[in-house]
């Protein structure tokens, strides 16, 4: 349905503005959503920072490169921390963990949540009630407390952190997708598929799933900001990724037998924004700049994802405005 609507919008554009190329149309959509473009810009910039951190960061984030507690200057854009680390370099490297944890947990959580939501909505009956009562219960419980318990139970590593945040995401996604499936399942194309003898898994995967994909993408983008905030909050509380080991952006390939750390360019110290704010808070005498920049980076990142999510919602499914 959502896809059909996107198609309608595109068709209308075609009608109003004949012979318009794909790029012009993209340009038109971007002109109507300046905030969304700003969000996209921030995210692209951060991704570039994350991937090319060794090139962009002027110093090794773990090296002592100057006096401690300097304010921002030409030599050190964001000043230095107590030990004389260059804060700009640390902020750049920290984008890696934030983005990786954010993306991975949201992809995992949205995939599982969508699968559960589709099943629950389509099957109905006892399975649906059982799933929905569980979702009710978990959603009602304060999310951060749930995360703290999960994180404590699962232990400290990138994978467990992603899993914990992902699990917390499953429930709201399942709720939203189920709602969409409920309105989808009575459509004629589903009936037609069933009349042709399609099996339930086939109907779910081939017919219903593509029609809730747009909604899932919108929800996922909005949740990215939330996931990044959650990672930062856990790191701030001392429950994030441990500092000791190096962080590789290819860590998720480790199960294939490939050593992610063998590519030095994508490996670096496991610095995070949240932990740096916490270290700054706990040090004496106080130094405001040290805490300021990592937190500002989190704000900008979350803002970027929120703005992009809002814009995607308006473009892909305008009827959701005010509801998501």
């Amino acid at each position, binding site marked *: 349905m959502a896809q059909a609507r996107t198609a309608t919008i595109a068709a209308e554009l075609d009608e109003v503005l004949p012979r318009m190329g794909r790029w012009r149309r993209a340009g038109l959509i971007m002109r109507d959503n300046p905030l969304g473009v700003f969000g996209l810009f921030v995210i692209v910039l951060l991704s570039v920072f994350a991937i090319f951190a060794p090139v962009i960061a002027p110093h090794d984030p773990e090296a002592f490169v100057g006096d401690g507690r300097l304010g921002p200057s030409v030599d050190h854009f964001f000043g230095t921390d107590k030990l004389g680390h260059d804060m700009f370099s640390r902020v750049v490297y920290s984008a890696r963990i934030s983005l990786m944890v954010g993306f991975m947990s949201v992809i995992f959580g949205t995939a599982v949540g969508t699968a559960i939501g589709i099943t629950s909505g389509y099957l109905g009956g006892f399975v649906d009630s059982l799933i929905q009562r569980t979702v009710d219960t978990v959603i*009602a419980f304060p999310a951060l407390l749930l995360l703290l318990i999960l994180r404590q*139970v699962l*232990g400290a590593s990138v994978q467990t952190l992603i899993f914990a945040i992902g699990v917390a995401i499953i429930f709201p996604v399942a709720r939203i997708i189920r709602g969409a499936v409920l309105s989808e399942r009575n459509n004629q194309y589903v009936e037609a598929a069933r009349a042709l003898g399609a099996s339930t898994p086939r109907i779910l995967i081939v017919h219903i799933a593509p029609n809730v994909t747009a909604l899932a993408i919108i929800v996922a983008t909005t949740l990215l900001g939330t996931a990044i905030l959650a990672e930062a909050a856990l790191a701030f509380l001392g429950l994030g990724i441990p500092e000791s080991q190096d962080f590789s952006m290819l860590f998720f390939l480790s199960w294939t037998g490939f050593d992610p750390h063998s590519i030095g360019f994508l490996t670096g110290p496991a610095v995070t924004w949240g932990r740096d704010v916490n270290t700054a*808070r706990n040090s004496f005498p*106080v130094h405001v700049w040290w805490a300021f920049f990592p937190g500002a980076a989190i*704000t900008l990142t979350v803002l970027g994802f929120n703005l992009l999510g809002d814009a995607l919602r308006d473009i892909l499914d305008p009827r959701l405005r005010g509801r998501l």
Partner: protein
Amino acid sequence: MQRYIARRLLQAVVILFVLSIAVFLLLRIAPGADPALLRCGISCTEEQREAIRADLGLKDAYHVQYGNWIREVFTGSLGKDINEGDVADQLMVRFPTTVELLIITVMVTVAIGIPFGIVSAVYRNSAADYSARFIAILGLAVPSFWIATLVLLVPQQYWDYAPPLTKTISFFDSPWDNMRQFVPPAIVLGLASAAGVMRLTRSSMLEVMRQDYVRTARSKGLREQVVIGRHALKNSLIPVVTVLGLQVIGLFGGAVIVETVFNLQGIGQYFLVSLFTKDFQVAQTLTLYIGAIVILMNLFVDIVYAWLDPRIRYT
């Protein structure tokens, strides 16, 4: 309505039972979940640690441990926490602290969120509307722990001022010091929820102002203040009240953060410390109590909703 409430309360008992078992097991299956090792590390022999485990009741079978815990929850004698403090006494001190924090937070949320939402809706697409909406979007993106840190650090560095970061000062002993202690964290915590409330008030207000009865009120020649204040505002606040109730639940999470930063001895901080120190007794008890509060809060919100909007009927 009575039948509805009774059914919800029955559901609540079932949910709390499942929750208690879930948290009880989760804490115990966690890797490295050995409270004895944390309480007495390498300086102790294995025998001494065994004694600690026996003392904490961790050597009993799970069903015995669970039964003991549930009995303690109902009798209110909750044993000792890791600092040898009586858990029940701690809760008596810590619950009021968190409750005061949350009350002031809700006051901040309402005082900021609703007026800005109204102005934003009434003067739609004006400069005031755009700036209010921009600040709200920003407010939803800012991490509360960062704002809390800055609220603490900036006055310290530039004006040499810090709120009292010691033990909780009772409002009745020294109202001024109590406020110095509670207002900054409450404002920090309230900002994010105020942003949410502002956006909701605005959209709800815009929705109501399109209704026929608002047009009727205008065409009767009523002054704009009366139209907004008496006809539009009341109805547009119905969804806001509901969301406010749900936000209080989320604030328990935020309380963990601001209580930690501002060193308030509330239940949020107690919960975090209990997780760090693998203090099962405190962690599982707090989870259960917070779960109960959340469920009752949800029920309360639903009842208030039906009372505010008579069109809603529960069966």
